């Protein structure tokens, strides 16, 4: 077998061909494809970049939830990030790279996929797929648009029209989410992110070949659980602000109303 193969390669392989071109299949020239040139490879890249962004999302959500621990905690966290340039810019560069590849290869596959069935069925009944999986190509671009808006809002401070502080990210967030349309938009996008992650987290395991009969059920559970934590965690912030549970820090300081309970130095009610 090996001898046959060696003979074949010696006989037909073009000398010094970097892509190891050889002739097989009755004259069909087959190039050894690189990973990213195959549908499987494109999906693998989408999966890996997805995992990177997913990892960031977990950290980002945990960071966000510090808002419930009061302004000084989350502001200190923000200051820490801004004073650790390597971490901040390292993360930004990695994420920019990940999202670029994720979008590029998703678009490439989406084109390939729609070209694969030029004539649609008159009747088609889904048997196994779900809403999240079917809408990946829609939830993706909307989330991308959300990310642009989110950065314009809380990083670049260009929208919406209220005074943004460079140091008090707590107030930036609270004043923002007191605007109902803004809070609703964030909540809507988080729900879409939830559907994207629900399919994506399960799907990346399959695409990367992580499959074992004993743990396959676990993949869905992990996807649902982690998605749930991220979505509920992030949505709880605008909800808490709209409900008035989380108040602007200035208001907290001014809360020296004698009828209110005892407060700490930042004006928050303390347990007693």
């Amino acid at each position, binding site marked *: *077998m090996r001898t046959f193969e060696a003979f074949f390669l010696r006989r037909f392989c073009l000398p010094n061909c970097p892509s190891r071109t050889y002739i097989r299949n009755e004259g069909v020239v087959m190039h050894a494809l690189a990973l990213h040139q195959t*549908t*499987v490879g494109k999906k693998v890249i989408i999966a890996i970049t997805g995992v990177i962004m997913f990892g960031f999302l977990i950290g980002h959500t945990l960071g966000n939830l510090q808002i419930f621990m009061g302004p000084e905690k989350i502001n200190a966290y923000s200051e820490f990030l801004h004073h650790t340039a390597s971490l901040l810019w390292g993360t930004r560069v990695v994420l920019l790279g990940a999202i670029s590849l994720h979008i590029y290869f998703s678009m490439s596959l989406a084109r390939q*996929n729609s070209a*694969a069935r030029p004539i649609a069925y008159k*009747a088609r*009944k889904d048997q196994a797929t779900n809403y999240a999986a079917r809408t990946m190509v829609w939830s993706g671009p909307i989330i991308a648009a959300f990310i642009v808006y989110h950065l314009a809002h809380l990083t670049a401070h260009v929208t919406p029209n209220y005074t943004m502080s460079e140091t008090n990210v707590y107030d930036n967030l609270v004043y923002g989410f007191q605007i109902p349309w803004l809070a609703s938009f964030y909540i809507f996008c988080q729900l879409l992110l939830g559907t994207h992650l629900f*399919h994506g987290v399960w799907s990346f395991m399959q695409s*990367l070949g992580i499959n074992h009969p004993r743990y396959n059920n676990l993949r869905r559970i992990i996807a649902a659980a982690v998605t749930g934590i991220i979505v509920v965690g992030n949505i709880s912030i605008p909800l808490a602000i709209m409900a008035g549970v989380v108040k602007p820090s200035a208001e907290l300081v001014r809360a020296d109303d004698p009828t209110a309970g005892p407060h700490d130095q930042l004006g928050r009610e303390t347990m007693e």
Partner: protein
Amino acid sequence: MSGNSGKTMHIKLQVWRQKNAQEKGAFVTYDVSDVSPDMSFLEMLDVLNERLIHKGEAPIAFDHDCREGICGMCGLMINGVAHGPMAATTTCQLHMRSFKDGDELIIEPWRARAFPVLRDLVVDRAAFDRIIQAGGYVSVRTGTARDANETRIAKQDADAAFDAAACIGCGACVAACPNGSASLFTAAKISHLGHLPQGQPERMRRARNMIAQHDKEGFGACSNHRECEAVCPKQISIANIAMMNRDVIRATTIAEDDKQTSGGGM
């Protein structure tokens, strides 16, 4: 399930009629009366064809061969489901008792760029043959037959290989996939051989070449919708797709050539 022997059904069909690969097709409606619930789906079409021939009309062309669910020739999209409503059943093994009297059924050919319609409900599945030609085989020295159990294979590997080898290549996976992907077919063929010691020497080259041919044929990519698994008459698992993915990843990155992988396990 309705109807029993003795009673007959009346079925209304909307069938895709297309003269040849070049001409445009359209749906034609047929009323089929006196359908026995015991007929297979293809027998019902046979009856309709007999009547069409009797009237001087062209019969509906559809693929079929063994009519016992093992050859992979038949395959129709029935009311939006590949091979119809019965799970793990080919079209020929589907019986009219799965439908109700008065049902209206839409019958379409497999729809995929790589499966052009040749006539009516017949599609050209030569793309599958070319995927097999690209690597779905093992190269062996011919000569004296070897002893049957000379190469010992663990039970679990033999079972996994057999489960994948059950693929009859009917194309329902492609038909059902929202992306028109042949991932399940290609994966079944790759992992069938990949589970066995005989498949190891060419394993990396097989994965690389078969996925390259799959893509070249114009099939879409796997988006993990699991529609293929749901309609597969042989219940091929998408675990095979995961295994194919592992093989393709290895074959296109770390594996220099098949030297490194020959004789390896799973």
